């Protein structure tokens, strides 16, 4: 396996997938972030998106500032603990200096004083990590999406979902309520404890190698869903996996979700025969309503044909490499 393949968080442990389970597992090691070789590229892309369409990528409600500082504290400590050569943090009481060796930046600010930062705290710290950062607040035994920096959405709108409860956010997922998953997962989140982080995966398919699949630009990237053929499926279709890490913030009772999105073109996936088998099983058993929801329906036929060909042992990779 090459490096990109070996670090890809392939989500299927077997050939079936339970769409309504709480598939969370304890997070080990307990770090909210991961730096991959794509760091420079993704940080650059993130900042470009933030500069170009800020309100699409960043939203917050006014009373989240304290929780945002907790996120800054958590993420910067995790960066320096997990990658001590790349990231440094000096603290002189509330005067913090953060050094990012990968971007060559040095940030000085007064912890707790938003005016000492060029952006809001969450917007600031998110610019140094590949992950999207979503902050839910727990108020009166309910969870609300109250702030987020989202540059790589899987076709969902931060602007529209801001302020929603957990159940309201997930209203569009077919079967999510009827199958009891909504209540089960909400209860799990409400009882999450500080000091015990969790992780879960979420997967989808994307036609085209786009991390930034915003619903605002759906007319631009969505058309590729209709351009898939059996010949281009291997390079056009990507398995998109979001590694979500969940942390309870001890001071404000907020919950931080960090979302690291990984993409793998099918032509690389199929080289792992075991992955190809499991993936093919999962995709061919995909219920229609989930396929619709994940936007797969328009290219289901060419996708199946492509996988069938691969399963038959066609050596298509070689042709694609030549193209």
């Amino acid at each position, binding site marked *: 396996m090459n490096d990109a393949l070996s670090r890809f968080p392939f989500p299927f442990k077997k050939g079936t997938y339970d769409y309504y389970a709480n598939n969370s597992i304890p997070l080990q090691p307990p770090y909210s972030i991961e730096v991959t070789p794509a760091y420079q590229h993704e940080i650059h892309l993130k900042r470009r998106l933030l500069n170009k369409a800020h309100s699409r990528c960043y939203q917050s409600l006014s009373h989240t500032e304290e929780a945002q500082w907790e996120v800054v504290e958590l993420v910067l400590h995790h960066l320096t603990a997990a990658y001590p050569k790349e990231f440094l943090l000096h603290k002189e009481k509330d005067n913090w200096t953060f050094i990012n060796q990968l971007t060559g930046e040095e940030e000085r600010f007064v912890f707790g004083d938003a005016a000492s930062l060029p952006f809001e705290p969450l917007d600031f710290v998110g610019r140094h990590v590949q992950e999207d950062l979503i902050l839910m607040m727990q108020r009166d035994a309910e969870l609300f999406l109250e702030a987020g920096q989202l540059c790589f959405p899987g076709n969902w709108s931060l602007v529209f979902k801001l302020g929603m409860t957990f159940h309201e956010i997930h209203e569009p997922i077919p079967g999510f309520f009827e199958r009891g998953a909504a209540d089960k997962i909400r209860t799990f989140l409400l009882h999450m404890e500080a000091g015990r982080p969790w992780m879960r995966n979420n997967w989808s398919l994307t036609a085209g190698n786009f991390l930034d*699949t915003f*619903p605002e630009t759906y007319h631009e990237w969505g058309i590729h869903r209709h351009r898939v053929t059996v010949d281009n499926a291997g390079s056009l279709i990507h398995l998109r996996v979001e590694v979500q890490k969940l942390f309870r913030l001890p001071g404000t009772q907020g919950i931080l979700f960090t979302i690291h999105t990984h993409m793998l073109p099918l032509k690389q996936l199929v080289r792992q025969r075991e992955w190809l088998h499991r993936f093919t099983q999962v995709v061919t058993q995909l219920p229609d309503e989930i396929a619709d929801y994940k936007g797969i329906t328009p290219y289901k036929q060419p996708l199946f044909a492509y996988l069938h060909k691969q399963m038959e042992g066609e050596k298509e990779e070689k042709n694609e490499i030549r193209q």
Partner: protein
Amino acid sequence: MKSDNEKIVNKFVIQTKRRKFTFVPNRRKSIILAEETNLEAVDELLREVKNRGAAYSLIDAGEKKEIADLFARQKIGTYLYLAGTPQRIKEWTAMAVKAGFTEEEMQIVCYGAEEQRLFCAHCHHIQTIGKEDAVQCAHCGMQLEVSSHYSRLHDAYYGYIQLPCSDGGESR
């Protein structure tokens, strides 16, 4: 940052399905607030309240300020029955929530024109629509598919971008 604290935590979805009130017994007091007199739902409730000898006040839709003051003066145990058009109900519930009432302490009968607001996925413009399934955004011209995904903050339904070769879907 947006300052929408009150809105977020307390604003709630107004159920427009309810046509009648259900009397809630054992409350210290009931306040019945109606936009118009002679509403059947209100008359029925009044009969029930009187039958049971419960304490109540019937208030005609008065000045905004007076109603806000009335709400703010209430003690724990007061229950609200609100009947009116969507616009008026929105005003009243906002005032009630500001005073400290919760969803569990009131009932709403909402009548009149059922118009709804639609949020454009592309440009975020919000427009008022009727009962269409698909409309064009009045601001950016994008073709939108009306969904049942609703935001209390925006008081609007989500309008998905519709491609000529329609599919849609949100992949979460």
